[in-house]
């Protein structure tokens, strides 16, 4: 009789070792698959590593790629702490990018005024977009999974409308791009690097989130609300107000990611500013178990996998296999994580009549 049960807590070292073993297992399975399909696994992995961290350029590009993943990840992690399923980071990112772009294209201010304004508008754009589903959630308990998800499509179509229509670059043959931003609207690079200043947003927000959640009374309220809204209400906590506030802050951080992308990376607003960062954010936040610095770390791992995946293709591995390897690594991290807190128990000599009930009793 085989069952899966919770296990006694492991030491940190053992837990880390187990997770690493999971990754190693994934790489071995991937190597077997690569060999079977006629590729050289050693070369493929070297290419992947080279593309992710193999040169100062590659490592910095991985950092750049990690910025939107980390910001959206931090945004949804905050919401998840409060038990709010914000699936809408993708749309909140787009609306942040939209408002920031409005300033970039419309205001001819100097950089010292324009960039803070764009950052603020990015926060406002994402925050307001998250407020839309937050209000019905707070007042009538409307399921925010559905509303935040559906609002993503609305936000993306709105950006499409702008870049195909009123904001279309007249020199771009009606392809979906706005005019390029003026230099004053471009986030500067951190001195001596190729990483734009959006990296500072990540550090600031991760630090702030860690502090607020662990060290403030409000952070405690959020976590209690996340575990049991009824208990929170019983304790006299302002649950509705907190729902609104958490959703707005969560969306604002995602909106800032949008501002960072259009201002720091792309230099204009266009169709497809995000290849799904807002959805990856959900996986990232959960892999990091909602820890702010953990989210940043997992975002870097994600970025390395994405950039490494492109490099992998240059050694002749098709994109589909590259995505499969990425998924394999993520899956193994999850499995490793699962076995940190669970184990497979094999018992002998039990009657065969019971397992159905036992399985049903399993949480």
């Amino acid at each position, binding site marked *: 009789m085989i069952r899966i049960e919770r296990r006694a807590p492991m030491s*940190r*070292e053992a837990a*880390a070792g187990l997770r690493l073993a999971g990754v190693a297992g994934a790489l071995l399975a991937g190597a077997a698959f690569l060999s079977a399909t006629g590729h050289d696994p050693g070369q493929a992995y*070297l290419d992947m*590593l*080279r*593309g992710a*961290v*193999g*040169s100062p*350029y*590659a490592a910095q*590009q991985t950092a*750049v790629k990690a910025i939107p993943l980390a910001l959206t990840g931090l945004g949804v992690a905050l919401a998840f702490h409060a038990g709010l399923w914000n699936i809408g980071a993708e749309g909140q990112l787009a609306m942040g990018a939209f408002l920031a772009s409005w300033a970039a294209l419309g205001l001819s201010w100097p950089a010292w005024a324009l960039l803070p304004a764009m950052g603020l508008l990015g926060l406002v754009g994402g925050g307001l977009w998250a407020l839309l589903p937050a209000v019905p959630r707070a007042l009538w308990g409307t399921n925010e999974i559905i509303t935040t998800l559906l609002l993503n499509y609305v936000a993306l179509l709105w950006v*499409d409308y702008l870049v*195909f229509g009123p904001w279309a670059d007249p*020199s*771009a*043959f*009606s*392809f*979906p*791009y706005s005019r*390029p931003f003026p230099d004053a609207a471009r986030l500067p690079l951190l001195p001596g690097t190729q990483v734009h200043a959006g990296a500072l947003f990540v550090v600031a927000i991760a630090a702030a989130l860690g502090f607020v959640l662990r060290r403030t009374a409000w952070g405690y309220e959020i976590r209690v609300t996340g575990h049991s809204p009824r208990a929170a209400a019983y304790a006299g906590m302002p649950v509705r107000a907190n729902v609104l506030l958490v959703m707005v802050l969560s969306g604002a951080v995602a909106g800032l990611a949008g501002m960072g992308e259009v201002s720091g*990376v*792309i*230099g*204009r607003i*266009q169709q*497809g*500013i995000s*290849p799904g960062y807002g959805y990856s954010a959900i996986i990232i936040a959960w892999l990091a178990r909602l820890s702010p610095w953990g989210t940043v770390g997992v975002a870097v791992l994600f970025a390395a996998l994405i*950039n490494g995946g*492109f*490099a992998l*293709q*240059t050694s*002749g591995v*098709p*994109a*589909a296999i590259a995505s499969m390897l990425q998924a394999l690594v993520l899956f193994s991290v999850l499995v490793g994580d699962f076995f940190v807190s669970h184990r497979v128990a094999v018992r002998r000599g039990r009657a065969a009549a019971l397992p159905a009930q036992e399985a049903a009793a399993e949480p």
Partner: protein
Amino acid sequence: MRMGWRRGMLWALAALVAVSLAAPGAARGAAGPKVAFIYVGPVGDAGWTFQWDQARRYLAQHVPGVQTSYVESVPETADVARVENDFIAKGFSVIFATAFGYQNFTIDVARRHPNVTFVGIGPAIKLAPNVSTVYGKLWEGRYLTGIVAGKMTRANVIGFVAAHPITTVVAGVNAFALGVRSVNPSAKVKVVWTGTWYDPPKEKQAAQSLLDAGADVIAQHQDTPSALLAAAEAGKWGIGSESNMQRFAPKAYLTGTTWTWGPLVEKIVKASETHAWASQDYYGNLRDGVVGLGPLNPAVPAAVRAQVAEKKRAIESGRLEIFTGPLRDQTGKVRVPAGHTMSLKEILTFDWLVEGVEGKSPK
């Protein structure tokens, strides 16, 4: 103990980075040029990207010693710059970045690598001494397929499943309609826009709506044969695009436009070796074979075949210019006066549909 573990991890990471740096980045040996291709979609079995990969294969067969590589499914964002830099680090000297949206990012990479030849997809937004763009006068082929459609329709209603409302697609719809009406003035062309290049269900649905509206020939401008398949299932005619789509529906496939980049790619690669390829915004056409026609359905009568062949010769020799006035728009207003032939620049800024097209104009 804990510090020890962390230090061990750091060493392991450092070792990995060192190994990947030492890895043979640019495997020298073959004497020929190294030519890279960057694709916006997966290669698949038909469509724009598939045709570009055919060109890559053609190049590998026709230029001795050439080394080719590709990366597929690269979004039209800053990712393309990373992929280009990766190819350059591996010693590639010619890079074909085969999507219009790569242009803005390619131009920045090209500035830092003056010895690498870049070829993007036109119409050109901006050129540089080492940056060219290529595209084709697809409308020449569309006109000929319009003649076939105009002759084969019985209902005098022809459907066009259009892609994105960009000028090059609009020019194709207009040329198609002019071809139809040059042989069948009472036929009309109904157009619907899918806003997609690759979305089989949506494109099939769009084709279905045109079939329901009475169309008995369905033309298209997407990478998938979905519209053609919808026509085939309804027992009507279909007209392909991008690739020879005959094998997907041999009975329904009347003909279609095709892209053939191989000989042009060979020419560019050979010329770039001696720095003889001058930067330009190049347009292929029926004459140089970049734009072509798929095989004609056996059901197309000999008289129609002769007519198509005759018009093809007329276009190739310059005797027939498709966009020559008088041309009226959907409201009947004369937009191009008699005797005037639209310039390339005018064609590339098309934002209206010609008389005989029913459906929403992109503006």
